[in-house]
């Protein structure tokens, strides 16, 4: 019986009185990259830590590679790596020491892979962690996360705050490792362009709730922006199903909506538009429009 690499079923998690995740349900299949996007506090990090077994859910069920992270934490963590933005590395250790230390803690550690990555990322094994730049620390964290050959890689904004060159380097290393392993990746990031580059599917979280989920092509194909020109003043508001964002500027009305091409154009022409142009959006534009709209959650309406 094959399990999804990561499965959340109605998972809820509170931090005191703050609801961090609200009945989240999602599945990540093996061999896919799931992009997890959302604003700060949307629940991305919480989702990853729950999957890693570091946090426990208040309600719902989590399965990772068929294991329960709550009761089988160490087993899960031996097959799943978490690479986070602020990787906690011991500042007094040298690069070689920390890799060796991590290797002795991990049953699936691949020293050859670690050495290869270390060389490829140009890390000096004698350098102390405390003397490394932020980028090099991120590289060390990447080696630590990848050299244990995880079946699931959880990435929590690992390239945030890094310069484009290092970001590219790290992303390439991740993609390289993935192509070899064929594991599942959950990639949570604010950097939507990076997510767009690597993700097969995308999930948008907002306020701990799932707002949008689907493959990247599906999401992009479903959400469109239409520019409609009216004879007179464009209406300031319109009632369209799946409408996420409406902006009016004189005779021009710009609408972002989740609808088929023909439906959106027909709806705008029905409002009296003289001309309608429909264009595709980038993931970032879709995300911004979705988060601005504050519309209903994905389970209720936006499931693509």
């Amino acid at each position, binding site marked *: 019986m094959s399990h999804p690499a990561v499965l959340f079923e109605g998972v809820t998690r509170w931090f005191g009185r703050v609801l961090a995740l609200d009945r989240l349900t999602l599945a990540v299949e093996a061999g896919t990259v799931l992009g997890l996007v959302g604003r700060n506090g949307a629940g991305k990090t919480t989702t990853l830590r729950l999957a*890693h077994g*570091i946090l426990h859910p208040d309600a719902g069920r989590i399965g990772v590679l068929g294991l329960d992270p709550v009761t089988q934490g160490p087993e899960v963590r031996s097959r799943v790596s978490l690479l986070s933005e602020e990787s*906690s590395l011991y500042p007094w250790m040298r690069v070689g020491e920390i890799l060796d230390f991590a290797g*002795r803690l*991990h049953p699936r550690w691949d020293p050859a892979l670690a050495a290869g990555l270390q060389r490829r990322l140009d890390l000096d094994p004698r350098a102390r962690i405390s003397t490394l730049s932020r980028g090099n620390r991120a590289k060390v964290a990447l080696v630590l996360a990848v050299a244990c050959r995880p079946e699931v890689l959880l990435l929590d904004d690992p390239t945030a705050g890094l310069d484009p060159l290092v970001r590219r380097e790290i992303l390439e290393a991740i993609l390289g490792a993935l192509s070899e392993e064929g594991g599942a990746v959950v990639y949570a990031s604010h950097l939507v362009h990076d997510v767009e580059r690597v993700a097969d599917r995308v999930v948008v979280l907002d306020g701990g709730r799932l707002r949008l989920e689907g493959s990247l092509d599906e999401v992009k194909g479903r959400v469109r922006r239409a520019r409609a020109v009216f004879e007179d003043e464009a209406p300031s508001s319109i009632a369209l199903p799946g409408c996420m964002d409406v902006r009016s500027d004189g005779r021009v009305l710009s609408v972002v909506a989740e609808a088929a091409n023909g439906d959106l154009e027909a709806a705008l022409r029905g409002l009296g538009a003289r001309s309608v142009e429909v264009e595709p959006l980038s993931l970032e534009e879709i995300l911004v429009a979705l988060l601005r709209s504050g519309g209903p959650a994905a389970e209720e309406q936006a499931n693509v």
Partner: protein
Amino acid sequence: MFRALVWKEWKQLRPLLFAGIGLGALLPLVLVAGAEAGRRGLSPLGRLSAYSTRELFVDLLPGMLGLALWPSMALLATAQAYCGDRAAGTEWFLLERPVPRRGIWTARLIAVLSMVATLAVGTAALWLLTAGASGDLDLDGGLHGLRLLPAGLFATGLAVIGGTAAASFLAQPLAAVLLGGIFAFLPVALTFLLAGSFPGAAIGGLPLGLVTPWVLLPAFVLASYLGLCRGEPGGRGRLKRSSVAAAAGVAVALVSFVAAAPAAMRLDATWAGSSHPPRVHGSPGRACVVAGKGGWIVDLASAKRVRFLAAGPWGFEGVAWSADGRTLAVASRASLLGGVRARSRLHFYDDRGRPGYPDMTVPTDHYVSDVPTWAGTALPLELWVLGTEESELYVARPQTGTLRSAGFRARTWQWGILGTTAGDGAYLWKLENGAIPKGPVAYDLMRVDLREERVEPQPILRDRGSPWFAQWKLSPTGRYWIRLEQSPAGWTRVIRELPTGTDLPAPRVTRTARWLAGDRLVWTETTRGRTRLLTALPGGAPRPLREWNGADIELDPSPDRALVLVMARPASAGRGRTERREPEDAAPGPDAWESPAGRGVVPELLVFEPETNRWTRLPDRLISGVAGPWRTSWAGPRTIARAGPGVVELLDLDRLDSPRYVLGGPPS
């Protein structure tokens, strides 16, 4: 994996180890410099100058290492090991690895213990080197300071456990050090508190309060383990789990003390009875068996202990049955759970062991001086007055709950209550002058009117002898008194009828005389190694009962004075202080010897019943002092108690072959 974890923790603790060894190396220099500066009037540690270099090195330094440096470094190391990663934000490194948290916890503990052990060995070696190099390490002179080292190791262990527990509550090492210090001190403080407040809750001299607080140590370890190894790795619920475990430890320590204290007091009394024969206070109804710091009211028929009475750490101040055996008065300072009251208290129990009357507390600054004496329903009491050398006569009336002064006060040990009259009265004795001379002394017999709660000012009799034994001279009805009179032949004892003040012509008794019911007298006379037991009513002719050769006879009336226990032991064995302190009797003439009664063998134990003139011979094994430290006495009107180490046995005169056991059991 585990070795890697220990390696990492050890590396993180190394700076502390070096700092500790550095401090250990500096301490001798600081002490010597401080002492030298003190001699020059410069040192802020001025008292150091009072110590010689040898004292500093050999006596002071080991204590400072063991009781200050090691525990404080252990506390720092524990806090650093368990909180350091959390404070530095590196805790997630291990949490994100496939490492069981109990492995991390154990590795930290091993690293801390290794660090502390290395520190102890290192600083001890430095101390030996320093003291040896200075020439002050004189093994022959005794290394007194070394005696502090085990205490130091103990304090270090406490610090490790306290620090471990504190680290599960706090993430900052410095705060954990402070809290850990509190946790480490808590069992010690609780020990002092419980042992000091409840000294009576003890077993074999070991206060229970010294034992139960140490439950906190495993509780603290558990609190740390539950906080750091169980639940969510992210830390949610850690504080709750640790708090519950620590609070449960405190609760268990206190509850186990509360639950165990009554049992401990009972056990202690039982054990005390194993080493020293318990004392049996008989009465017509029940008996009270006193052993160590406790006692029991015992049902004579079944030998069941119907109630335990705690005596407090200093034992009972007095135990007295009422004449009818229905009320037991006990004076003690015992409080709940082995605690001690500031003032003595009188407790009254009925024959079922239930509180008979409300307790009475003696007035402030007064203490019960002597065994209370029942006089009908009243209880005259001699109470010491704190801060003086005097004691005062009080009268307690349990039925009305009053305890009032009778207005009589004199120097302690120079007066005492000696007995009661048939009416609502009592007698006390009082020395004529302040001093207590050796040998026979003159004293006054004074009547106490208990109804009026006052002492009649005029003495009714002036007598000589030992007033301590005056209670044996007053007849049960209070009508007759055995007066001591000096004659050319020696001391003779004359019966005086107190209401009329007249001396009766007969009988002349001896110092062994005891009163029985109906104001009957029994006594012994000894001439040329032959001892004869006699009985008579006041004014009547003596009737010989029995005689022995080479015997010491001890007479013990039963609680209702209907019977007398006659114990005949070899003359060399049984002479007690009583006989020695009372003046010798004038020897009766040879013509006084007529022996119509049977000849006795020595040793033998008999019960004589004057009403029926019946003798009952008891088994020889019951003779006090014959077979080990056993004591035979009355437990009830027809019940004998045999008390020995760990055993109190009751025997009915009518069923001597069916002993019942209050403590212990039949010999195996």
